[in-house]
């Protein structure tokens, strides 16, 4: 076993110990007077009215899935990246084909609108909100906000978790 991993192990164990040791020490000195109200789940001052376990939106899953696919791509490309310098142009081309095929997948997912958080906006599909067919500028604007605008649009999704 090489010595480098020992450092990692020490850091790992040290980190865990640091947290728990502190909590233990604090528990020795802090007062302990629990009540029902104190033990209830903190929900930004609101009273909790249901379980926090509710169905997530499918889109979380889609994004996680896309992430795993590209995660695997890294696992494949990492060894390639280590050797490709020594193998020259052909290895480069071979890696390019690999990435290219996956890139097509990304392009597909993107163009089909599966990466947009609020998909209907991105596709200009809800003209009833806007009067008349949305102009190019409006669609473009909404498209961009759909890509980047996370939380505030999230609330609009009918299934997204808002508890």
């Amino acid at each position, binding site marked *: 076993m090489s010595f480098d991993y020992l450092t990692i192990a020490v850091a790992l164990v040290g980190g865990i110990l640091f947290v728990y040791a502190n909590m233990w020490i604090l528990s020795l000195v802090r007062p302990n007077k629990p009540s029902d109200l104190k033990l209830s789940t903190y929900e930004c001052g609101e009273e909790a009215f249901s379980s926090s376990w509710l169905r997530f939106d499918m889109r979380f899953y889609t994004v996680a899935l896309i992430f795993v696919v590209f995660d695997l791509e890294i696992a494949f490309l990492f060894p390639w990246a280590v050797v490709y310098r020594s*193998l020259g142009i*052909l290895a480069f081309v071979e890696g390019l084909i690999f990435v290219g095929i996956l890139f097509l997948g990304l*392009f597909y997912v993107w163009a089909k609108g599966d990466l947009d958080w609020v998909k209907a906006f991105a596709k200009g599909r809800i003209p009833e909100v806007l009067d008349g067919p949305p102009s190019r500028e409006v669609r473009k604007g909404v498209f961009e906000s759909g890509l980047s605008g996370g939380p505030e649009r999230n609330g609009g999704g009918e299934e997204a978790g808002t508890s």
Partner: protein
Amino acid sequence: MDFRLTTTDLHALLPLVILSAGACLVLLIDLFLREEARSRVLPPLTSLILLGALGAGIEQYISLSPGSFRFPSERLGPLLTPIWRHQVFTAVGAILLCGIALAVHWISTSWLREEDRPAYGEYQCLLLLFPIGTILLIGARNLMLAFVGLEIFSVALYVLTAMRRTRSRAVEAGLKYFLLGAFAAAIFLYGSALIYAGKGTLDLPDLGAISREGLPAPVGLAALGGGILFLALFFKASVAPFHMWTPDVYQGAPTPITALMSTGTKTAAFFLLITAARLFPHEILPLIPILAIVSILVGNAGALRQTDLKRLLAYSGVAHAGYLLVAYCAIALGQGHQDAHTAIRAILYYLAVYGITNLAAFGVLAWLERREESVLTFEGIRGLGRRNPFCAAVLALAALSLAGIPPTAGFWAKYQVFAAALSAGQTTAAVVGILGSVVGLYYYLRILVALYFEPAPEEARIPAAGFAGALTLGLSGAAILLFGIFPSLLVDPLIHIRL
């Protein structure tokens, strides 16, 4: 180590290259087209790609057969040889699978148009990816490559099965197929890992070595791994008792996809069963005839009770896997080179005929099926002989061929399989197989009776099939008759499969 690519290598991979590039192209073009344009552009493009791959397969077959003006490329030494089987065997598989995919594509064009939201791009991309996976499985000389192939076509099939998500039956079928298939894939991988642990290599032996006097028998971990590996393959080939998923999934999947599943998957699985024959542990070799017998019994007994035609064909598929295993006994348990050679040719012949026949049968069903699946029962096809003589004739031919009645190709297929088993001394399995086919007559003839001797219901209406669908049915019906009357047309080409 060599990193150059030669033309021989490209030639060896030509069908795969065409299909992969085609699948990417379809996916890409789909993004740039409007809804109406898709239905006009994508189906012909897919046909073209599949025809190209089919042509490449045929070209490979011709150039690899002895007597061609080119040397078999093996002697030229393509650098892919350690991992890829550039042989007539693979070329035959490529031709079969491209043909199956093409037929399914043609069957499904009119069917796809009926859907609420036809997803041309995805459907056709996945349809092109299916033969890639299966050809990889067939040509692989290495279990890792075979696994990647297995996963590619399995994933494509899971998605195609569950494509119609609004129907609970399709979702159920997709989920069942996915869960069991994922387990089968995991088992396949586990078996490969154990084989590697035992032997230090993932190579699949050469075709010449699959008759028993070749390599030493697998022992220890390798034997265990081989046994586990075969479980996964038996699952894919829906051999009893690993067939539980078959009826539900066949019924729930869209009919063209059922056709693809029943022909393509079985073909690929049996090709790999042949090439992996040496990995089967010798201690449990006597299990193979037993599995064959069980499949024949379970399949036929199950089919007797069905009223739904897709379920009936599913059980009949289990029985046919049993017949194929009868011939497989001759490879696994036969004593020599000759036995194995005969049996391999018998299996390939059977797979080709079964593929054509099943495509014809499911093609008719896909034609009859509109939005209602309930039409695919004995009730639904009553009096079809008068309502639509063409459909009825093709379905009748397919039923006769599945039953193995003489003027059809199915007869010669069964004949060869049982002859191969008998000449290898597998009498019990062959006799059970023959008895099973006699039982099978009952339900296949029931189809004929329903088609021609029962009155048609009043309100029944046959939807119009597209040109491509009709062409496929016509071609496969003609092929069933042609290969039935002149079996040598299909037997002779398989002689070039060298061991």
